[in-house]
């Protein structure tokens, strides 16, 4: 994990303003406000471009079926200002994500918090 203490502090400050940075277009457009879910899986693809940075994450569900989720954060220009670059999370990383799921059962996740392999959090502090 490339973050040192100073960089992590910057990201923790960033979490304070995370709602501003996530306001690229309305969360209510595609995500449910009332629900929050957590998933854990392996990053298979990274899309560090507008309109949203996306991480495609795969895992095997309790029924033994493979699921692929489209995990979305903010736009690149807002993230990189805080030190969150396309190198921060790599393909193959196993991460946990907590966020708002997509409407209509779509496998989308709007990030509130990401827990990195070393246990540190991006966005808000990952809930215990």
């Amino acid at each position, binding site marked *: 994990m490339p973050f040192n203490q100073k960089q992590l502090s910057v990201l923790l400050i960033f979490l304070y303003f995370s*709602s*501003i*940075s*996530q*306001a*690229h*277009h*309305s*969360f*209510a*457009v*595609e995500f449910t*406000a*009332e629900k929050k879910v957590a998933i854990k899986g392996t990053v298979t693809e990274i*899309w560090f*471009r*507008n*309109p*949203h940075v*996306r991480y495609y994450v795969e895992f095997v569900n309790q029924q033994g079926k493979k699921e692929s989720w*489209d995990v979305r954060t*903010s*736009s*690149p*220009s*807002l993230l*990189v*200002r805080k030190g969150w670059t396309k190198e921060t999370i790599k393909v193959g990383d196993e991460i946990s994500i907590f966020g*708002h799921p997509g*409407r209509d059962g*779509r496998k*989308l996740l709007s990030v*509130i918090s990401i827990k990195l392999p070393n246990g540190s959090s991006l966005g808000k502090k990952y809930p215990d």
Partner: protein
Amino acid sequence: MNITNKNIFRAALGMLFFAAFSSFPVMGQNIEGSWMLELNGSKQEIDNSITIGAPSDNEAAIIGELILRKEEKGWQAHVEGGPVEIDINGGKIEILIDSRDLAGFVFFRRLNGEISGNIMSGTFTIEGATENPEHGGYWVATRKKEENKKLPPNPQNLTGIWTPAPGVDFRKYSMDLTEKAQNWHNDYIDHYDQPNVRCVSPGIVAIVAWGAYPFEILNSEERLTFLYEVDSEVRRIFMNDKQPPDYYPPSAMGFSNGYWEGDELVIETQLLEGNVRDFRGEPISEGARMHERYSISQDGNTLDAVITLMDPDNYNQPPIRRRKWVKNSNTEIYPYECDPDSFYRQMYNEDKLDMYFERSHRRQID
């Protein structure tokens, strides 16, 4: 929000004063007309030197225009151009205002208070789930001063990069749509129909009030240029009476003229194409015009704007947005390339591409 005990005490004193002297009914007072609402903001030193509202160091004030009308069916009210629920009973007033938080989730601010002459004040609470809930607080409304500005131009230096600051805007959710607009909006599916989800710029009406990205102002002879980071949009504001060239087409960015009224920059934008106003997808007609008024603080570090959309085809009351920015010399305008691949790919994976293209007419607005 950080309200100190001292501040709470001052606010409570103010409330007690009004409770004591404003218990008479509103009968006989004409409260119709325009008021300026301020929520949770800095302390208000009103004419009689009573402090109203909770001073707050860390949370910026929310400001909006409240319009009250007495009609046959009872009191009608609008905040920032959008309808709100209102109940006036004697000297007491209750207002329920729908808003959108910075993440886009809808919530309500319920204001309860007292009316006393040309001042209303009270407390408000928050209802509804939001990602970053507010804490409620205090509110005050005073009569809106009629502005009759015809001040000689006093141009200010607005050059620099401006970063959005929190607060100010109510982010009013619902607007007072005409029947035509309401019918159009009923069939809108925002996560398929919004321009920006497929990397199309939503246009100046949405961009100017966008809450996340910085923009830069350049000043040259008889022209201001606004460079918006979002969608890498460029906007030219002609500081003279220049008219659009022949056959200049309507567009998402329109054609803007500006002038100085005293210290304030006023921008009038015409030639807007049919579009949507906001994330909610309410329509903008081709004949719409946008009026903006910018003011810079005395120290030159804060820029405020009031943005009004005039579009009587779609809105019975003009929608109003407010923005605040702070000057930021520690950043630059970052690149903003957008690639719609993932948007279409998602629909392809979900077998929704046919549905999407069958709805193409929804993305053309007259």
